[in-house]
């Protein structure tokens, strides 16, 4: 048996090496000299792709007590910022991966331009796995162990709600990129900023659209997460305000493989519109299965997909079933792209070989804004960064971004609580794929009317 051990070890090493070479660099080693109980020790920090941090004391540095450590790099040579988002299941790691890539790109751009406050910036990105408890742990670690001066990212609302509590406890500013829950900025915390739409604002676009088209009976199948539950309740309430009362909300585990039993149930009395609002793989599974059953999209029943319909992989998974599907898109249509959007799209595609979704744009802008605020503040003090963010008017890949209400311009009573530190006008549109294989840029903008590029709704032929 022992004769197998060596070849086996070689094969394993080769496999690991191949895996490591296949993607972008996944491990960063930082070696520093720090003082522990009066003794100089060299510490090596290894940050892996999943952001597990290992710290190893590699040697004790023998120095004279009076020796100046100026030749050695110190913590203050680098500004550390933290990122968080889902990089593994059960989180929506498609979105999280794009967010991490976009944030890394933003940090590299800033470093190439000379850094912030004359120092290099280092991004430490924590994998929250889409789990609130992991969000708490990752944020605690980033703040208390990595000593980051600001945070950015996050995809899931449920996770963001726990992360913001930790950030608030330590007074560290956060620019959230993607979580939509109203309670994120509705908390009114000084440290919390957001450039994604709130659920209330996001939902109002689709509910107004539903009313405009004239659908009266709608069924939403939403993911059973904090986001999905809040989204379902908001849709129901907003549609009721618009006089549409025949609304059903059905909850589904995002990892559900087979939706056919519930789709067969819905097919007993087909609605005017069926929505499958599940992020990740569930988005294409539900659409394909509704299509196979002949339930939707049909001339009688329209199909509203989740925001994941924007990814190019959507067509690979749903094929012809994707034609006539519509979905809400957060981000700029090509007609509204500015110089930064063009640059971002080109660089991202060159660097990662894939077309970025809106979450990548949000993470990119959120990271740039945090770094610009540190530069503007002239310090890494939280209060100074928060003040700089409140007064910032930033032109990013998503357009002109600013925070209307904050300590410098308090929230009026007639504004919803979520408008605190919230970018008031993120671009939210309804797009419809009218041909198989269309990209987001080719899809018809059907709502709001001022941005529409085609008919309000194109039904599949009889």
């Amino acid at each position: 048996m022992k004769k197998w051990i060596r070849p086996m070890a070689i094969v394993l090493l080769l496999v690991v090496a191949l895996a490591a070479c296949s993607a972008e660099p996944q491990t960063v080693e930082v070696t520093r000299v720090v003082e522990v109980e009066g003794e100089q020790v060299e510490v090596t920090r290894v940050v892996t792709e999943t952001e597990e941090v290992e710290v190893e004391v590699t040697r004790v540095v023998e120095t004279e007590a009076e020796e100046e450590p100026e030749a050695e790099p110190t913590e203050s040579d680098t500004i550390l910022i933290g990122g968080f988002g889902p990089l593994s299941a059960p989180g929506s790691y498609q979105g999280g991966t794009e967010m991490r890539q976009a944030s890394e790109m933003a940090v590299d751009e800033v470093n190439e331009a000379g850094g912030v406050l004359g120092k290099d910036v280092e991004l430490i990105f924590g994998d929250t796995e889409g789990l609130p408890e992991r969000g708490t742990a990752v944020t605690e670690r980033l703040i208390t162990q990595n000593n980051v001066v600001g945070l950015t990212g996050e995809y899931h609302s449920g996770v963001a709600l726990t992360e913001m509590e930790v950030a608030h406890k330590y007074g560290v500013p956060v620019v959230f990129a993607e979580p939509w829950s109203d309670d994120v900025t509705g908390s009114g915390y000084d440290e919390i900023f957001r450039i994604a739409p709130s659920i209330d604002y996001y939902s109002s676009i689709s509910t107004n659209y539903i009313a405009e088209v004239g659908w009266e009976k709608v069924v939403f199948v939403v993911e059973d997460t904090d986001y999905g539950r809040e989204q379902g309740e908001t849709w129901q309430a907003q549609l009721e305000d618009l006089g549409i009362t025949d609304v059903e909300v059905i909850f589904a585990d995002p990892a559900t493989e087979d939706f056919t039993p519930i789709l067969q149930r819905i097919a007993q009395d087909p609605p005017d519109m069926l929505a499958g609002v599940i992020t990740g793989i569930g988005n294409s599974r539900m659409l394909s299965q509704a299509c196979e059953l002949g339930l939707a999209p049909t001339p009688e029943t329209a199909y509203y997909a989740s925001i994941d319909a924007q990814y190019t992989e959507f067509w690979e998974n749903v094929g012809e079933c994707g034609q006539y599907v519509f979905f809400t898109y957060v981000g700029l249509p090509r007609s509204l792209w500015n110089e930064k959007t063009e640059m971002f799209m080109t660089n991202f595609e060159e660097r990662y070989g894939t077309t970025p979704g809106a979450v990548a744009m949000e993470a990119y802008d959120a990271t740039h804004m945090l770094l610009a605020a540190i530069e503007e503040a002239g310090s890494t003090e939280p209060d100074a960064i928060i003040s700089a963010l409140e007064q910032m008017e930033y032109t990013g890949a998503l357009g002109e971004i600013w925070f209307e209400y904050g300590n410098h311009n308090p929230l009026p009573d007639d504004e919803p609580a979520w408008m605190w530190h919230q970018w008031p006008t993120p671009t939210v549109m309804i797009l419809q794929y009218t041909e198989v294989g269309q990209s987001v840029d080719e899809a018809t903008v059907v709502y709001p009317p001022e941005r529409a590029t085609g008919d309000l709704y194109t039904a599949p032929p009889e």
Partner: protein
Amino acid sequence: MDYFLSLLITGLILGIIYALMALGLTLIFSILNVINFAHGEFYMLGGYASYLILGVFTGIHPLLIVPISGLIVAGLGILFEIFFLRPMHEEQIARPAEYAVLVTFGLSFFLQNLALAQFGPYPHAPRPFFEGSVDLGVVNVSADRLTASVLSLLLLGALLLIINKTWLGKALRAVSQDKQAAAVVGINPNAMNTVAFALGVGLAAVAGALLAPVFSITPDVGAVPAIRSYIIIVLGGMGSLPGSILGGVVIGLVESFGAGYFPDPSRALNYKTVFGLLIFALVLLLRPRGFFGRKEV
């Protein structure tokens, strides 16, 4: 009545596919006495193998790739069994039970992360076997789902035939019952362990390749089917092949009818797994060995 029949048909179709996945796990457990915690990842590998090969050889019919995917993954299974599980059976490992759990869990994490690095986080689907849906009178079923189900049924039959009617099947059953006695009559238990593991993970890979056009694949796509398979093999009786088939069909039907008739439609889909677990708990309560479990001697 049509609604009932439509739920029955879709539940049966799904149950047969579940059974195929669980059968591989049962086979490995009954022969090697190891619970393979990487079973879901072999299912995932089968899907990716099919996706990769079809991406390269665009002219081949996707159905031809299914057995090839199974063979490739079975080959990987052979290597894993020889290098990592055989030392355990040769008593080179001090605590074999803990070792088996750790080594299969380790493989599971390794394969998931390898797939994430190689294929990225986005769902992928190979070309469909056949386009469109088939009208079964009371319900439309996609041609791919029907194909997967029919092929699963054929595979289950073929496997039962091999296990019950061939020398290899007899040898596998002998090793499953008593390794030492099997060795005395000239059967090599190590070789049977390797065959069983390769067959088991090969079946998982075939299930993955059959279902990839239906459910798509991501690096973690094997997690849910693997957990369901653990339930099915306990329900059917640990180590019982007919038990796994019956267990798969029962779970498929219970999930289908549960979601179809649960009074609160808003929770019906979410409780789908719970319905299966309820039946599981009930069966274990009334018949702790499962449907066809063997009595411990």
